[in-house]
């Protein structure tokens, strides 16, 4: 008496069983689950943005995300790429783009930015994992073609219309403006840390971005290397070479101002556009930090984080290639014997 449903012929078994090569199990982590973690980690900062800047901030996020997702679906159809909406990466791009915009931008800007990020920067290069520039940052830089709108910062808690682009509030200076002029901002550092200064929707609260970043690090979604190297470099450079005659407060204020935390934890750590070797990630983080400070000090725009990350994006392949770990038990290939006299000469 057979206790299991054993088919009579091998042919039936063929239908039931999968014969495929090992390994036969996979970890539960998938691209969508990682992306979901990133979204969750961004939520506190996003909610804070809405609390500080009003419902218009939420509107910008919705427009940006919807535009990204639609652009992804349509371009996937047209370009015959794998349909990748359910990997949630377009949602992450859309959210990041919105968090990088001032609340006063007209609503067509996140829409155009989203399409640009997804279609031009990502899909035309072959879809997820193939682009070499960070889509959200690229879109942000593209939107700087409308520099007036992009650098128009209103004070938090200003009532703004939900849809209309008719903004009559006054533009204020961000803390970075005074820092780059060599003076401490008028806002106490603790308020900078919590996020009470004017700025882009999602960049203001270092505290909540830090919380989200730590969540990602604990969940092993990102490693601590890039953010630590990035923020550490900015701190070190602004501490040792402050503009004007400033003390440690200048360095602390520099670290908490601008898009540094958002950039270091969420943009520079974008998988596709960052190195995947441990040493490479440190080099990349240091490079981002150094470029950020250089651009802040000497560049035309007050904020250098986006440009710094985009510039470092270009070097990812080289960083990966030159920080390639030595394989376990690697034996150096034997070089042909050189003639005795030649010292340090190239092997033929």
């Amino acid at each position: 008496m057979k206790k299991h449903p054993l088919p009579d012929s091998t042919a039936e078994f063929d239908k039931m069983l999968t014969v495929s090569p090992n390994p036969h199990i996979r970890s539960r982590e998938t691209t969508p689950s990682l992306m979901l973690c990133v979204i969750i980690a961004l939520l506190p900062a996003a909610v804070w943005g809405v609390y500080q800047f009003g419902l218009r901030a939420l509107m910008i996020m919705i427009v940006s995300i919807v535009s990204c997702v639609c652009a992804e679906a349509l371009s996937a159809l047209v370009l015959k790429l794998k349909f990748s909406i359910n990997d949630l990466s377009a949602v992450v791009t859309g959210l990041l783009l919105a968090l990088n915009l001032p609340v006063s931008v007209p609503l067509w800007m996140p829409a155009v930015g989203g399409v640009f990020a997804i279609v031009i920067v990502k899909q035309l290069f072959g879809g997820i994992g193939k682009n070499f520039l960070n889509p959200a940052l690229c879109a942000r830089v593209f939107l700087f073609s409308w520099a007036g709108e992009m650098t128009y910062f209103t004070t938090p808690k200003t009532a703004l219309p939900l849809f209309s682009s008719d903004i009559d509030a006054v533009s204020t200076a961000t803390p970075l403006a005074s820092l780059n002029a060599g003076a401490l901002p008028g806002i106490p550092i603790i308020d900078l840390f919590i996020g009470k200064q004017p700025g882009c929707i999602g960049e203001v609260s270092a505290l909540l971005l830090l919380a989200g970043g730590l969540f990602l690090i604990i969940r092993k979604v990102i490693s601590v290397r890039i953010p630590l190297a990035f923020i550490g470099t900015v701190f070190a450079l602004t501490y040792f070479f402050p503009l004007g005659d400033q003390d440690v407060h200048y360095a602390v204020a520099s670290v908490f101002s601008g898009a540094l935390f958002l950039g270091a934890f969420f943009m520079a750590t974008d998988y596709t556009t960052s190195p995947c070797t441990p040493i490479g990630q440190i080099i990349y983080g240091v490079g981002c930090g150094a470029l950020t400070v250089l651009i802040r000090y000497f560049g035309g725009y007050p904020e250098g984080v986006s440009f710094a990350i985009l510039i470092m994006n270009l070097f990812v392949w080289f960083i990966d290639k030159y920080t390639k770990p030595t394989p376990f038990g690697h034996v150096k290939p034997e070089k042909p014997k050189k003639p005795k006299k030649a010292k340090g000469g190239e092997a033929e």
Partner: protein
Amino acid sequence: MSLTFIGGIHPRENKNAKDKPIELLPPPESIRLSMSQHIGVHCTPTVAVGDHVYKYQCIGKITSGLGVPVHSSISGTVKEITKSVTPDNVEKQTVIIENDGQNTPDPSVRGFDGPLSELSAAQIIERVRDAGISGMGGATFPSYAKINSAAGKVKHLIINCCECEPYICANYRLMIEDPDAVINGAKLLMKALGLRRCDIAIEDNKKEAIRLFTKKLSGNQMFTVRKMKTKYPQGDERQLIFAIYNVMIPQGKLPADVGCVIFNTETTAAVFRAVAYGIPLCERIVTVDGDCVKEPKNILCPIGAPLSDLVDFCGGLVKPPKKIIFGGPMMGQAQWDIRSPVSKGTSAALLLSASATTEYEHRSACIRCGKCVGVCPMHLMPTYLASFSRTYNFDMCEKFGVMSCVECGSCTYVCPGRVPIVQLIRSAKVRIKENRAKKS
């Protein structure tokens, strides 16, 4: 502190049969013995259809070359000698024996009379060879040849009790139910190798085994129990040697080249039984597990018994399996028949439903998360290897060290983009080897 290597993964252990004592399989109606259950040349059958065979009788022997004989695990009549395809896609000669239910042992099987310490190294090696012992962890390399090639050259003997694959707990049960067989087997191996010292490497999730061995061996100068971190692939010989002695085996070399030799737990116990009692290798412990099996068990079963008998003994199936695997889920081989016979290298049989195993998705995309780079125990960059292999760029594959890959599958396990990395690596390796062969 537990010893370990760099990289590796922590798959869910799923060792459901961990607390199940080893049980004996009821005698199967018939067995199928493949004439090659080891690495090396195939055996030639020494019996003909219709012959009566004893249990423990040699039914296939090696005429020349590397290999070990095959013995019958039951007494009965030879019903058929055919060719059949084994899961590694090779057609091999197979002897089918029908059980007469008598279990009559071969009268010529005799133990060694007198103290085991009187045996010479050559005698031990001869007995190991005649008993048909090959590595029982899955690699199935003939043990006598391993001893021969290592004797005089090596300084360290390691008994590998790591069992780092999920589900499998056959070695663990053996260690706690018959520790003396393992210890005595290790002593015999030391003698054969001319060594005075031996390391027993046990993963730290096997607390009971560590406790037992530490207690039994306390004060014994010859043995050291090494606590290893629970991590896959801790049982891989390269990683094991690195974890204990901090030396790396150079690429393309063997453990013996760095003065080490490693034996699997069950192989060690089989050496003891072969040398002391003259019993050839024709039984082994198989962990039967997986979510389709009613009651997971550790079964001592005759080699050649069909898996369906083992499954029946476990209470049958509770749902239809999607995959049947011989060995662990990371390194094991998928089977296409539930009647596949247990062989010398089968440490486990897993029957997994669709939810417990993974389909290879056609929609896979690398997101360059770098997780595969972090887990690779060989310190490679699997993501680049996979993408170079996908574009047939085999030169770059070689530059990035593809030939060092031990195909442990850790990279493929962690990959969130579900890229079939190790499969792509395998095909690159095959192509590179082909190209090399063409050139020379």
